[in-house]
Structure formats: structure tokens, C-alpha cells
């Protein structure tokens, strides 16, 4: 067992968990934040993407112990009150989701790479989304949303 102390969406938490606990289980089962999804559990699909100290990571492939002391942001931490994060807003307006299962991971991945590259080309958007799979949309509207979010965020 290990004591894990970390910040999730600005709030300090402390959990006693088994050493083999994954960050995604800590977030979903212990912190009870179920917006972060598990799609594949094999680091392929990106549904579990969260920010760890500002960088997008697949939380199904990070141990809780590796995240000890970290600052985590999940999809629940993106909106400010009733005001959606620009990436969330753009996904809504561009109809960039159908079933919505991949969406939390998509939004965390997109907000992650837009920090590095606020004005991505189409090619750079495709490469930025390489770690995330969507089985519904065909990606066209997701790419549209990324472009719209990029414009909104650079204003």
C-alpha cells in the first residue's frame, strides 16, 4: 500500500491505495471523477488522457505512484463554472462528437497540443490527434473543432 498525495483540478487529495493502482483508477474510483474514460486499457485509444503537470498523458499507463505529488487536470477541471473551455465549446459547436465516449480524452489531448502549437496546420492536427481514436465521427468535425478552438484561444 502507498499513500498518494496529489492535486486534481486544483483540489488536494490523499489516498491509500495498492502500489499497482493506475492513475485512471485513482481518478475514477477513488476521486470519483468518472469523466475520464477507459477505452482500451492498452495505451492505444487516448480516452483516458488527462494532464499531468500540464502535459497530456494516458492515465491508464501511469501508476498512481508515478503521479504522487503531481498536479492533475481532468475533463471536469476544464470549464470555469458555467463557461466551457474553448476546446469544449468548439467540440459542441462543430458537432465533433456522436456517442461522446472518446470526447474527454480528445479534449484533453487537443488542449495539450494547442499549448505547444497554437496555430497548427491540418497535418499538425492529424499528428496531434495520433494518440486518440474515435469510432464514430470520422474525425472531420473533430479537426474542424480543433481549428475553431485554436482561433478562439488565440484571440
Amino acid at each position, binding site marked *: 500500500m502507498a499513500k498518494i498525495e496529489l492535486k486534481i483540478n486544483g483540489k488536494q487529495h490523499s489516498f491509500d491505495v495498492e*502500489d*499497482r493502482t493506475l492513475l485512471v483508477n485513482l481518478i475514477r474510483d477513488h476521486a470519483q471523477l468518472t469523466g475520464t474514460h477507459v477505452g482500451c486499457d*492498452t495505451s492505444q485509444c487516448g480516452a483516458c488522457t488527462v494532464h*499531468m503537470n500540464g502535459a497530456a*498523458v494516458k492515465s491508464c499507463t501511469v*501508476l498512481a*505512484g*508515478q503521479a504522487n505529488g503531481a498536479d492533475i487536470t481532468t475533463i471536469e477541471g476544464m470549464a470555469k463554472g458555467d463557461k466551457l473551455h474553448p476546446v469544449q465549446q468548439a467540440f459542441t459547436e462543430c458537432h465533433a462528437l456522436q456517442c461522446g465516449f472518446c470526447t474527454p480524452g480528445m479534449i484533453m489531448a487537443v488542449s495539450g497540443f494547442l499549448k505547444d502549437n497554437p496555430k497548427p496546420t491540418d497535418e499538425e492536427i492529424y499528428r496531434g490527434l495520433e494518440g486518440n481514436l474515435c469510432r464514430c465521427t470520422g474525425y472531420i468535425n473533430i479537426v474542424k473543432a480543433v481549428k475553431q478552438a485554436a482561433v478562439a484561444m488565440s484571440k
Partner: protein
Amino acid sequence: MRTFSYVKATSLKQVGELLAANADAKLLAGGMTLIPTMKARLAQPSHLIDIAGIAELSGIEVKDGKLTIGAATKHVEVAKSAVVKKAIPALAYLASHIGDPQVRNRGTIGGSLANNDPAADYPSAALSLNATIVTSKREIAADDFFQGMFTTALEAGEVVVKIVFPVPAKAAYEKFPHPASGYAMAGSFVSQHGKNVVRVAITGAGPGVFRWKDAEAALGKKLAAASVEGLSVDATDLNEDMHGTKEYRANLAKVMTKRAVAKLAVTAAASKSGGK
């Protein structure tokens, strides 16, 4: 995953002690390979020794014509490093094309070399650039380090500390990524050292990274894509699976080499004219 004990190490000395005391312990760096392997129960260590935060394993610097990168340096750090981009831009390019952004935010150069996946990118750079792998015990030349599929010269309890790359005159990397995984179906890292020494390392095509010596000889005489036109990679021992035959991979290795050589010329011309 089966149960194990997780320990966050703070020094190489502590890692040595932990490894000595626990025969079934394993090192954990980025975890991008090891954690999925443990989930699949292909590895069941008793202890995981997290080396990601050890200061002795970090840092990027250029000194006396050599670029040194700490083993725990993440792919994203190599990709973005101004020092790497100036010394060996092909290495920064390679790092920026590993897997996906989330993988690059966690995976490390030491983990990639120690793992020696036959389709991984970094082994080709280490082999082509004639790098030295510095471990907790000794220094190993890249030519001796890679020993075929998932096999290296590393002994039990030996930790990769840093990788020393001689800065080449020119270098370029080209890979044909598998469209789903991003791993190389074939990749070629070509580098020129001094005037006539060219080293070509091929990844993805065979059971492990290897040097294409016929191409090295031809390119050493004349560094132009046309020099490899009449050559072919021996397909006998290459990989064959649902994604491609041996012959397909042999041809792909040649095409990637030609593209890398062509890119070499462009990069060199751009740097002469002060462009990027």
C-alpha cells in the same frame, strides 16, 4: 496486473542497492512499454524501481563535438531541445515522430534503447551515429549494444545512465510508420562523419536494428540517393507478417534510405545558406 512494490528512487546508488536486494525487481522509466507488458502479464516483477526522477539520468549537453543525453530524458524533451536541434536536428526530428504526443510526454530514450524493440526509432540513431551507451558499469559501443529482437548487451542490474552521440557532419532520418501504431515498418538513419565515412542503420525491417554496409560503402564514395539505386537489402532474415513480406520491407528500407539521403542534401544546403 499482479501485485508489486513501487519504489521511487532518488539516486543511482539507491537503484543499485534495490536491484541487489531484489532479484525480480525491474526498472521503470516512462512505463510506456513496461506497464502494458505487465498488464499483459508478460512481465511480473516483484518491485518496480522508478528511475524517472534521478538527477544523474537527466540533462542534455554538447561538449567537444559530442551530444550527451541522460537516459531518463523524455522523447518530448529531445524533440523540443534547442541544443539537440542545433547539434543533431535529425535526432530531434526522430524523437518528434515517436508514437503520439501522450507517449512522447512519458517515454524515455534510455527505456527505448534498453527495450530494443525491432521497430523502435532510437536504436537506428544510436547505431548510425556510432553512439556510446554509458551504463552504471561501463561504456558500450552501439555496434555491440544491440543484439537482435528485444536483446541488448545490458546485464542484469545494469542501468543505462546516458547516451553520448558524436555530432556528425550531416544526418537524416526517414521512416515509413505503420499507420495504426506509428512504429517503423522500415526506417533509415543515415549519417556522415568526416568526409568519407557514412553509416546507415535500418530499423523496423529486421528482427533488430542493423547496419546496411553495402549502402555505407557506396554512399561513402558518393553521397547521393543514386548511389544506392543498384543495391538491395538482403531480404533473407527480414520480418514477415500480415503488414508486409520480407521483400516489401527490403524495398522499403532502400526507399527510406534514398529519402534520408535526399533529405541530407536539402538540410545541408539550407544550413549553408543560413536557413533552417
